[in-house]
Each structure stands twice: as C-alpha cells, then as structure tokens.
C-alpha cells in the first residue's frame, strides 16, 4: 500500500504541479447535435463489438 502511494506521488511529481481533470469533471452537453448523437451510438456499437470479440477470442494484445 505504501509502495502504491509512493508510486502515485512520483507520477504526480512527474506531471509537475498541474492538477489534471478526472472523469467526473467532464459531462456530455444537455443538447446534442445529430452528428454528436451518431458518434455516441457508433462508439457504443464499436465497444460492444470489441467486448464480444474479447469474450469470444480472449483479451487482446495490441500491436
């Protein structure tokens, strides 16, 4: 546990003093354009296909 904390601290130091945002800091806009809606749908379908492939063939090693 202490080692993990030390590693996290080291990573923070390597990023300087800048505080980077986290996932919770980002949100989708309330109103989406047609292109934005289509992108979200296409992303969801691509991720479903990726997960199905991983379930079928195993975890991927990216090349």
């Amino acid at each position, binding site marked *: 546990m202490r080692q993990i904390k030390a590693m996290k601290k080291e990573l923070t130091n390597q990023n300087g003093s800048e505080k*980077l*945002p986290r*996932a919770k800091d980002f*949100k989708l806009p309330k109103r989406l354009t047609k292109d934005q809606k289509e*992108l*979200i749908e*296409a992303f969801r379908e691509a*991720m479903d296909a990726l997960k199905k492939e991983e379930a079928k063939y195993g975890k991927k090693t990216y090349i």
Partner: protein
Amino acid sequence: MAKKPIFDTSVFPDYAVRIENLLLSCLFPTLVFYELVATSIDDSTLQKYERWRVLANKNKLLINPTATDWWETSKAIRRLYLMQSEQPTKLKSLRNDALIARLAVIHDGFVVTHDTDDFQVIQKVMPNLKIMSASDFFEL
C-alpha cells in the same frame, strides 16, 4: 480550458461505458484506431470501427500525427536510444505510444493509460507530456 484526456488503446474495453459519458471532451489518435483495427478479427467489428472513426473525424475529435510529429517523435526516441537505458526492442515497441504522447503534448491533452511505466519512459524525453493512470482518472 482543461486539458483533454487521450485514452491509450487498452483503456477502451475496460472503461467503455465511462468513456461514453465524456466522449465529446476527449480526442482520438489515429494510432488507437490503427491498434484496434490491426487486432480486430470479425469483419462486422471492423465496420463498426470504421463508422466510429468517420464520425469522430466529422466531430473534429480525430487527431493524426503530421510529418513534423513523426520527425520530433523519432528525435525523442533517438534520445532514449542514445541514453541506452532501454533495449532497442523495447524502443521499437514504444513507437505508437510515443506518437500518442506527441499528439497529447501538441493538442494540449494528457494520456490516460494502464501502461504508465511505458509512458514514463517516453516522458524522460518529452518533459511536457502529462500522464494519468486509468484507475486514477476514473477514481476507482
């Protein structure tokens, strides 16, 4: 304006649902599509990646290395080569990550990855590179 997250390829399958909620705030390097496409098996999956890529481009979220990015990245990897701190086989395996890192620096983003060790190696020669582990970013 906050820096934009740029996800390394291996983060996508593990955090797909969470990424969807910030899809319009992140950028997609063409290198990520390269890695996804190169390791896809079914044609139907390839078609879905193609649609995602086209729409990411239409929404101006697709980022691609220019000739200058390739040049500067090769110079960065050369610095690592001259430092002799990593094996040449390791440096060869860092090519895509180094280009993703370069795109993050140029487009005012930061890399979210499972492989912080690899990006820390690149950070030695790209000091402006910002990295965050996926577990920290999603606060698990």
